[in-house]
């Protein structure tokens, strides 16, 4: 068996280890990149409220009876026409009813639970002037609903108005607002929020009701991001093939160069089996050392990035964030095991053939 000290003393071993470390780090980054892109698309595109909001062209009671037991359904409510809240002090706002889990991250305050609680954006423009609404936190405010009814609300939280610009209301209390208005606010249909866009097709197949996405404007986006992910996956697979082929070629070159050493070992009395095991052992140790150092190097790189490099690219920032829950190491381990098996079979047959030549 190959002595660890002997491996460490040889310069050619260190060249091999260094190349393996670099290639393992590439594999780590490539797999992590794939996981991050998939997660970014899930969170920013599929997981959007509008892509999980379904309208069913049936009465509420019938839908509730049929669907309430299904585990993919988050909430069922009566469909309504548009709702708007106005106030001359803070301006005009649409209402965006969301479930608590879907609400944006708050700058201050807590999420609304009761019927008279709302979230406001931190910023609005009133008569061309910037108005910060943070000072309204915790206060009561009178708003006019659809220019018909005046209601008092408590502002329980303020969110960053970068992407959304409306009053956020707890969807579970939407009936409270609709019941304040005349009955024609209800369309007679039912709306359902599911837990993931991909369960929409499943719901269509399993349920004998006419349904569609309430807002289909997200479908184009989904199609574009589906095709983007496939393209990214293809390019990453090409990179992985490249990395693996380099790994295998270099290993076989290094192994070929041990021809003289193998012949000497055979003349010294080692059998074919022992020579093969010797070299398999050598490569196992090289791979293990390289893998451990590559993981440590990745951890070090994440620390260096965190302390010295700051960018706006969220995907890049996530790539250099150490997250124990990521499963990206699993495919790498599977690949390393597969390469090892290929290499070892190669070593075994190469030794057998070369010994026969003597």
């Amino acid at each position, binding site marked *: 068996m190959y002595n660890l000290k002997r491996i460490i003393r040889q310069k050619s071993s260190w060249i091999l280890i260094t*190349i393996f470390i670099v290639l393992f780090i590439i594999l780590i980054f490539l797999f992590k990149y794939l996981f991050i892109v998939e997660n970014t698309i899930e969170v920013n595109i599929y997981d959007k409220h509008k892509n999980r909001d379904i309208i069913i062209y049936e009465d509420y009671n019938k839908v509730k009876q049929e669907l309430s037991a299904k585990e993919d359904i988050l909430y069922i409510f009566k469909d309504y026409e548009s709702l708007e809240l106005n106030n001359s002090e803070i301006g005009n706002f649409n209402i965006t009813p969301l479930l608590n889990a879907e609400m944006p991250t708050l700058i201050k305050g807590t999420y609304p639970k009761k019927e008279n609680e709302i979230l406001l954006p931190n910023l609005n423009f009133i008569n061309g002037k910037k108005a910060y609404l943070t000072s309204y936190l915790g206060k009561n405010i009178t708003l006019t609903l659809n220019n018909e009814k005046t209601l008092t609300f408590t502002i329980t939280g303020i969110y960053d108005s970068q992407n959304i610009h409306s009053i956020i209301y707890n969807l579970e209390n939407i009936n409270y607002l609709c019941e304040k208005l005349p009955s024609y606010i209800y369309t007679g249909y039912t709306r359902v929020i599911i837990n993931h866009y991909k369960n929409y097709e499943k719901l269509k197949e399993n349920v004998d009701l006419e349904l569609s*996405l309430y807002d289909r404007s997200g479908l184009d986006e989904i199609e574009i991001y589906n095709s983007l992910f496939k393209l990214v996956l293809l390019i990453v697979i090409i990179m992985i093939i490249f990395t693996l082929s*380099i790994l295998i070629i270099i290993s076989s070159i290094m192994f070929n160069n041990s021809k003289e050493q193998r012949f000497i070992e055979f003349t010294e009395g080692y059998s074919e089996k022992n020579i093969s095991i010797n070299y398999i052992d050598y490569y196992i140790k090289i791979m293990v050392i390289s893998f451990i150092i590559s993981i440590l190097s990745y951890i070090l790189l994440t620390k260096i990035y965190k302390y010295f490099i700051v960018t706006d690219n969220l995907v890049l920032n996530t790539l250099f964030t150490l997250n124990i829950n990521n499963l990206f190491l699993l495919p790498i381990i599977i690949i390393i095991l597969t390469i090892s098996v290929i290499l070892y079979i190669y070593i075994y047959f190469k030794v057998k053939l070369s010994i026969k030549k003597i």
Partner: protein
Amino acid sequence: MIMPKFKIVLHKFLRNKLNYIICLLIALCFSFSIIINSLSYSARKYYEDDIFNFVSYRVFSIVNPINRKDLINTLNNMNEIEGVFDSYGYMSPWELPEFNNYFKDNKTPNMWLLGMIGDIKIIDNSKINLSEEMEMVCPNNYLPYEKDGKPVADKKIDLTPYIGKYINFRYIDENNPQEFKIKLVGLYDNDKINKNYNMCYMNYKALEKINKEVLNLPKTNVYYQLKNIADEEKVTTKLQEMGYYPDPIVFLNRMPALESLDLLVYISYGIFFISLFIVSCIIYYNILKNKKNFLINRTYGYSFKNNLINSIFESLILFFFSFLFTIIFNLVIYNIIKRIIPIYYPSFKNITIIISPVVFLQALLFILILCFLLNLISLILNHQKSIYNNINM
């Protein structure tokens, strides 16, 4: 004197199998990194130019602006704005009586008419500027029917025979049906965009004229079209500071895509530099292997000058074969990728793979530098060493 020496070095080089493998490995490393860099860059460009910059994503609306005239003046004075218009034409689809019962299903296919300004790219990659006359550009892949928000793929109408001809459009209104003749001047490649299967584009002024005749709606909103989608944030921020909140006509969140593709380009450059590192390691490993031969030459009386000339010749030969194999590999890998990828990913044929000559020349330059530099460094380092100690190590 030089030629016989060169022939000896060449002969020695060609006899050693390891040299071929090293050249192949150098070529493989650089070819793959060139192709990966080209793919990543081409993908980024495809999404930025063809998908995100499509006219639908560059049109924004401001609902019921307080000071309409003021807003229109401001928009007209911005360099980033291609045009400002009062109506987008997004009323309802129009019927095409010409294709009535086309699929023997007693239905009349529909088409949306949308307004735009400026150039639109058509299928032969040239651009058409739609005039204020009744002319339009329609999709190459026209699928008139939709089911659950998705087009029905097996019901396609080929509009190619109608290029240069007038097509009748009928407004769907039982009480007041009206027909207009609009000339089809070209087809845009909607396969690239993955959508827009039933939308034709015409100059917004021409569209506003026919919309007024059909349904004279009061002017409430203001629409504007950007020259480039990259200016979206700048224009939106400026308008928000004035108290206006523009909304895109077709919402598309570009940021996750652009960030992911940017990173892919950076990773590909990273692979390029890692290829350099791997190639350096391989060449250095080869030098380690040849160290004994080099020291034996010294015992035969080779001077530093002789070894230097041999080293230069070896580097040149290594570079030449690496360069040759790089070109062959590039052509082979490029053709394989072009033929195989579209089988699994049909949209890939819309992407033009641009092999950047800069990256290619960079790769060749680095191969040349590496081949020479490493050999020379090794020569200089080994020249001073004790022969006895080094041979017996």
